[in-house]
């Protein structure tokens, strides 16, 4: 009888709090979005599952001795997991389209206005009672506008670990929502004629240029923005392994097994931060709202910059490709292609949008470095 009581006390039924139940529902919702709606499933599935595990009363997943605790301490506290993901993404990235049309770098720059405007917005939101974001919090939230998961997780883990869960969820959710968020803004800011503009075919890039590019990026970063070198450095390492042509087995491993292993762990660790006390707050609503604002402003500033460049340039530029500057590789580029096709069914913008798209990855890593330098 005593044993039965022991067993009963050890069930979760008595110990459950409403907060935990609600967070499990959030976890289940993320699983639904990942599996049925295909929202960034590689991350949102483990994040959702991690959220469920982390909120099981008496199971101790996130306490010392629990597996999620260890994963978090080893991989996120140290910053190692997002950096390894970034190395893998670097090994997957082809800078060819950017090298073929270097000016699209400026589109990747312009779209980062989404980040900095949101930083201002987050501080402004402090005027609303109930919000009290520090500059660190505001910076970590703003990076959602970078539309780049590992960058957001890396920066949040450094500046505002309490908000990490909400920020990562917002970042990946909005990246999945890019096909819904971006098109209206793109159509609003452009005329049908602009959207129908065809661009010239891209030149071919030689192997040496592709090898030297990541080194050039690293060189400039280490000179002018050392705080951005962890992210940019690991990204460039991955890209150099890809392009060097002499370490193919390392490049393949970085792009496949290593990034897969780290992705599982990273997702679980992020999910483990989705506790009721940290997630079921007004601040999370603010973060979700600010994230949407960040994506929208980033898209708009990318498009507007592209319109400006189109005016100044002799070669035709389709302003839609500016929207790809937010990164969200390669979703944003595909959205550009789709909206372009609507206006002119022979207008294939995919490769032209890949330039600003990968520029946006660099841009937000640079922005993260700037934020680390200014408020870190």
């Amino acid at each position, binding site marked *: 009888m005593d044993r039965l009581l022991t067993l009963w006390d050890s069930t979760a039924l008595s110990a459950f709090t409403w907060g935990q139940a609600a967070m499990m529902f959030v976890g289940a919702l993320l699983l639904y979005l990942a599996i049925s709606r295909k929202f*960034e499933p*590689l*991350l949102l599935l483990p994040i959702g599952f991690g959220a469920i595990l982390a909120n099981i009363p008496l199971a101790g997943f996130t306490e010392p001795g629990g597996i999620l605790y260890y994963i978090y301490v080893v991989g996120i506290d140290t910053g190692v997991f997002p950096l390894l993901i970034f190395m893998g993404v670097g090994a*997957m990235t*082809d800078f060819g389209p950017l*090298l073929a049309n*270097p*000016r699209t*770098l*400026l589109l990747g*720059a312009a779209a*980062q*206005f989404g*980040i*900095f*405007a949101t*930083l*201002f917005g*987050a*501080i*402004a939101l*402090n*005027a609303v009672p109930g919000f009290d974001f520090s*500059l660190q919090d*505001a*910076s970590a939230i703003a990076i959602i506008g970078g539309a780049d*998961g590992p960058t957001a997780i890396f920066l949040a883990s450094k500046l505002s670990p309490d908000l990490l869960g909400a920020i990562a969820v917002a970042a*990946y959710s909005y*990246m999945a929502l890019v096909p819904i968020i971006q098109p209206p803004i793109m159509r609003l800011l452009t005329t049908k004629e602009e959207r129908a503009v065809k661009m010239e*075919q891209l030149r*071919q*890039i*030689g*192997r*040496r*240029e592709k090898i*030297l*590019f990541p080194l*050039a*990026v690293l*060189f*400039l970063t280490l000179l*002018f*923005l050392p705080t951005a070198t962890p992210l940019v450095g690991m990204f460039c390492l991955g890209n150099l392994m890809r392009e060097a042509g002499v370490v193919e087995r390392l490049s393949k491993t970085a792009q496949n097994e290593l990034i897969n292993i780290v*992705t599982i762990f990273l997702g679980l660790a992020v999910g483990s931060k989705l506790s009721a006390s940290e997630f079921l707050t007004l601040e999370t609503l603010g973060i979700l709202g600010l994230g949407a604002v960040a994506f929208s402003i980033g898209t708009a500033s990318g498009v507007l910059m592209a319109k400006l460049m189109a005016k100044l340039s002799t070669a035709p530029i389709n302003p839609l490709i500016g929207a790809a500057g937010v990164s969200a590789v*390669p*979703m944003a580029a*595909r959205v550009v292609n789709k909206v372009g096709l609507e206006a002119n069914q022979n207008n*294939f913008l*995919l*490769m032209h949008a*890949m330039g600003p798209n990968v520029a946006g990855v*660099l*841009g937000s890593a*640079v*922005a993260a470095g*700037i*934020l680390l330098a*200014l*408020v870190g």
Partner: protein
Amino acid sequence: MQQQLSEALTIMLTGMITVFVFLTLLLLAMHGLRRFVGSEEQPTAARTTTTKHRDAGHSGQRIAAITAAVHAYRREHE
């Protein structure tokens, strides 16, 4: 609050300017890179031709391949 806002404004401006300055520097570096690679590749004409040939291929094929890769990437990756 007021002070925080002005700080945020400063960060916004500083940050945005820095991003542009930095990526513009990179843009210049890319132009330099292209010229450097071009000038380097001049003397080694024979090798360059081969390389170019390998790299160039039929651009139609290449775009098709890249598009396929992007689709594969989209299916498989975050």
